[in-house]
């Protein structure tokens, strides 16, 4: 019987009520009396010298409060980067200055040049049109390989070139890897592109800055996945505001997918301008602005090679990747193609020798950073495409080749520095084969062919590393932040609890699932637990939500804090029960003396904590409030096996995903309904990447896909129902909940299955194409079929 509450129950989401009735409180819903509005004038050229910005005419227009340009920010810090990568020669990466408003040069279409603050949004926009900008256009570098050629135009004149870093991992293994390739019985090689994407949370970014002159206190309301990180980065590095004078609030946030992790210029601007204008200042991004100012994702060009012995065992793997950084280093950009990508190249396989090279490159494009999966989809895509290609070259079944090379014993130390604690890749593959009815495929293919369609079947496996940590390790790897999480549990006198978590929910349903955990630990009703997040004045310093870390890290902090609460409550209870602490047990919301019917209810204990008349004051303080900071011992390693069936119309090249199967191992699960929903959303984004999404620049650096009429967002009619299973569960061994994280799996695991299925369909139509790049648009498929 499924549980109806607590850990393991599909509790309905409490946050749904406000979202379903129009009562959510998103940042754009926040209006402060007297606020002004900012409109950013953005560069319409990709690269140029900024000769002058004449604001005279604009400043005289109705409603204009003040106009800002780059010179106003000369004394202000650079937008900081939160991760410093050290290259294969031991040198630190090149790190350019990233101004709030462009100064001297513009480096990508969309870079803000000037900002007009006015009484109304319309007045700000009208005045921005009257600003005269004189730019001498320079040749733009868009293609990464062109950007690193000798003599290429430099994005940053003060850097040695456009190479941010050249990273080798593990550099000491390179000789052994090359030697293994020399001895290989078979080598499979693949060159591919991991297409550039735009995260596109449905809520565009918004920032509202406020400044109280009488106290010197700043408040920033912003669409962030991690308000404390913004407070630290913006306060300490950009504006010089001490944290106790700066409050950052991220209220209801309409999706993030990574792109709302980062600290953006617009946040610093509204905070700065609120003081300069002595008025609250609000910025609401349009979708068009979002396309050219939200950090983009993916954009790798890779050559990958697999060495196999005569028995088809993987003996070595090496990769050579170019990773686009865009024009500036977004907050965590350098970590994505390195520590979130290179460390995952072993995949689910026991390949003994691996070498990964990554060249990170500056181009005249929007900065690129983490997007759902962040480095792990790129690793999974290249590896799982390559394994499929090897299977076809060798004439063996792709599933069999995978099974033969699976890691089967845990813990398993990969040759790329990480140790998988648990997993069962055979179990998820078994489950997948059962779900997907592999045996019935031939009949389904016949049915498709009878309609003049080709049908293809593709599989892949994936492994990911979630819950990024531990802090002392990531510090060695270049992180400029700790990656713990915090929680404060405040128990009220009448027994209800408020949990203040450093994790941030922007669609994940933490208010429901986190409450399930705490309620279960104490044995009380979920409705007695309230979850608070997203406000630096209310919750302790926390690192926020990304990398599928909320439950594994934030949930663990909450468990630790709740354990402290229970320990203290037990002391109080043992006093009230006049029993030894060791004899008192907590069950179903009451403390009972073991083996007796003597008990005291949770609410009586909490009341005693705040009305300590009969209380061991000489031993413990009154009150019941505890905080925990949890720093994990390792990453978590969710894994799984995915399968896709496509139909392909050879006349048009149109591909439709007919069936999609996901067998995941997320360890223990708190709310199966929410977990399933997370997988669904990830699958849609992965299928979107594989089939239709593509962020495209022309050779001059003009962004060609800057609206929903040009960037193909998946619609309901583009996607199938998904078949999702998470019954294979190998609990994480090093966090108290045994959970692994589920937020990114779908996006990581689905693109290779789709493309492998498309290639299978094409083969069945007599066209043995070994490679096609994403998105597998009708145009590309038709060309491949007719080449």
């Amino acid at each position, binding site marked *: 019987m499924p549980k109806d509450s607590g850990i393991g129950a599909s509790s*309905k*989401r409490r*946050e*749904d*009520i*406000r*979202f*379903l*009735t*129009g*009562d*959510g409180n*998103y940042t*754009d*819903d926040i*209006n402060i009396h007297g606020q002004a509005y900012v409109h950013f004038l953005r560069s319409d050229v990709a690269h140029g010298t900024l000769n002058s910005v004449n604001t005279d005419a604009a400043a005289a227009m109705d409603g204009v409060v003040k106009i800002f340009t780059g010179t106003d920010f000369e004394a202000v810090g650079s937008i900081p980067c939160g991760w410093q990568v050290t290259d294969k020669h031991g040198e630190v990466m090149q790190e350019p200055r990233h101004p709030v408003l462009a100064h001297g040069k513009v480096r990508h279409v969309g870079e803000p040049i000037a900002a007009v603050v006015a009484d109304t949004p*319309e007045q700000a926009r009208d005045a921005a049109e009257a600003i005269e900008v004189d730019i001498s256009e320079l040749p733009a570098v868009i293609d990464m390989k062109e950007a690193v050629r000798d003599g290429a135009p430099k994005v940053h004149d003060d850097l040695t070139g456009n190479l941010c870093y050249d990273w080798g991992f593990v550099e000491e293994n390179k000789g052994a890897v090359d030697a293994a390739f020399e001895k290989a019985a078979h080598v499979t090689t693949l060159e591919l592109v991991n297409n550039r994407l735009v995260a*596109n*949370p*449905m*809520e*565009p970014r918004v920032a509202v800055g406020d400044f109280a002159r009488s106290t010197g206190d700043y408040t920033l309301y912003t669409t962030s996945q991690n308000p404390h990180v913004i407070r630290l980065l913006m306060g300490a590095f950009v504006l010089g505001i001490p944290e106790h004078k700066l409050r950052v609030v991220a209220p*209801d*946030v*309409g*999706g993030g*997918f990574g792109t709302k992790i980062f600290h953006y210029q617009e946040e610093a601007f509204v905070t700065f301008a609120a003081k300069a204008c002595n008025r609250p200042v609000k910025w*609401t991004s*349009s*979708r*068009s602005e979002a396309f050219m100012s939200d950090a983009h994702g993916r954009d790798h060009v890779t050559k990958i090679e697999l060495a196999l012995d005569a028995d088809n065992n993987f003996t070595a793997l090496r990769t050579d990747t170019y990773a686009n950084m865009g024009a500036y280093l977004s907050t965590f950009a350098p970590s994505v193609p390195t520590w979130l990508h290179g460390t995952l190249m072993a995949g689910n396989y026991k390949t003994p020798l691996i070498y990964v090279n990554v060249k990170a490159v500056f181009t005249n494009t929007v900065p690129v950073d983490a997007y759902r999966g962040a480095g792990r989809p790129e690793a999974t895509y290249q590896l799982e495409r390559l394994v499929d290609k090897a299977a076809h070259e060798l004439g063996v079944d792709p599933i069999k080749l995978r099974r033969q090379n699976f890691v089967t014993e845990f813990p398993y130390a990969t040759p790329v520095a990480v140790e998988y604690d648990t997993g069962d890749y055979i179990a998820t593959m078994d489950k997948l084969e059962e779900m997907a009815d592999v045996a019935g495929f031939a009949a389904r293919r016949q049915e498709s062919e009878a309609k003049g369609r080709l049908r293809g079947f593709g599989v892949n496996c994936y492994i990911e590393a979630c819950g990024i940590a531990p802090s002392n390790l990531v510090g060695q790897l270049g992180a400029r932040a700790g990656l713990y999480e915090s929680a404060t549990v405040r128990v009220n006198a009448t027994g209800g609890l408020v949990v203040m978590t450093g994790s941030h929910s*922007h*669609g*994940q*349903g933490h208010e429901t699932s986190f409450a399930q955990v705490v309620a279960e630990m104490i044995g009380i009703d979920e409705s007695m637990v309230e979850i608070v997040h997203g406000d630096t004045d209310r919750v302790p310093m926390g690192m926020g939500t990304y990398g599928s870390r909320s439950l594994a890290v934030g949930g663990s902090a909450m468990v630790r804090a709740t354990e402290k609460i229970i320990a203290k409550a037990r002391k109080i209870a043992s006093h009230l029960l006049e029993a030894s602490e060791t004899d008192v047990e907590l069950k179903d919301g009451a403390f009972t003396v073991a083996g007796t019917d003597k008990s005291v209810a949770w609410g009586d204990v909490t009341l005693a904590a705040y009305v300590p008349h009969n209380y061991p004051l000489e031993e413990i303080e009154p009150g019941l409030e505890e905080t925990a900071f949890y720093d994990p011992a390792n990453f978590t390693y969710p894994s799984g096996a995915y399968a896709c069936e496509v139909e392909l119309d050879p006349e048009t090249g149109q591909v439709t995903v007919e069936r999609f199967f996901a067998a995941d191992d997320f360890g223990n699960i708190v709310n*199966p*309904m*929410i977990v*399933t*929903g997370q997988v*669904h*959303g990830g*699958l*849609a*984004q992965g299928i979107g990447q594989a089939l239709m999404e593509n962020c495209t620049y022309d050779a001059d650096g003009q962004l060609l896909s800057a*609206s*929903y*009429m040009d960037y193909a*967002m998946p*619609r*309901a*009619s583009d*996607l*199938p*129902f*998904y*078949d*999702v*299973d998470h019954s294979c569960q190998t609990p994480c061994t090093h966090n108290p909940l045994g959970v692994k994280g589920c937020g990114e799996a*779908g996006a990581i695991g689905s693109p290779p299955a789709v493309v492998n299925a498309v290639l299978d369909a094409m083969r069945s139509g007599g066209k043995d194409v070994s490679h096609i790049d994403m998105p597998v648009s009708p145009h590309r498929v038709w060309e491949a079929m007719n080449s």
Partner: protein
Amino acid sequence: MTQVKMTVNGKTASGHVEGRTLLVQFLREDLGLTGTHVGCDTSQCGACVVHVNGQAVKACSMLAVEADGADVATIEGQAAADGTLNTIQQAFQDHHGLQCGFCTPGMVMSAAALLKDNPKPTVAEVRHYLDGNICRCTGYHNIVKAIMAASGQDIGAIAAE
């Protein structure tokens, strides 16, 4: 500035607007009905769908002055006065048809318009009807399921979970 007067969720509402003021701006900024959202600037995303004289309309594609005298319904008027969710809203919660909630008001309003015209749609009809509503969180699976359930149809045949 022009005066506009309309009925919104059964109550009379009026205000002074510029000629270029969109209906969605009037609802959000003048009336404070912030449940109707703006997710794009090309009338693609559908987060701003409301009903005007019983028809689903993207409130970003209609001027406030065009709605003068109209009967407008928004997400804020969908639940009963005591807070009880309507059938579609309840189905969205029951079937986890929303995550971040930003597209949700538009989805609910579109679904209501669909079921009014076509009380027992097929899955394909639901998916086709939602072409003007983009969701980035759910992959649409549970939205389609919720709408099918709200129509009173058996959803047992829809893929596991």
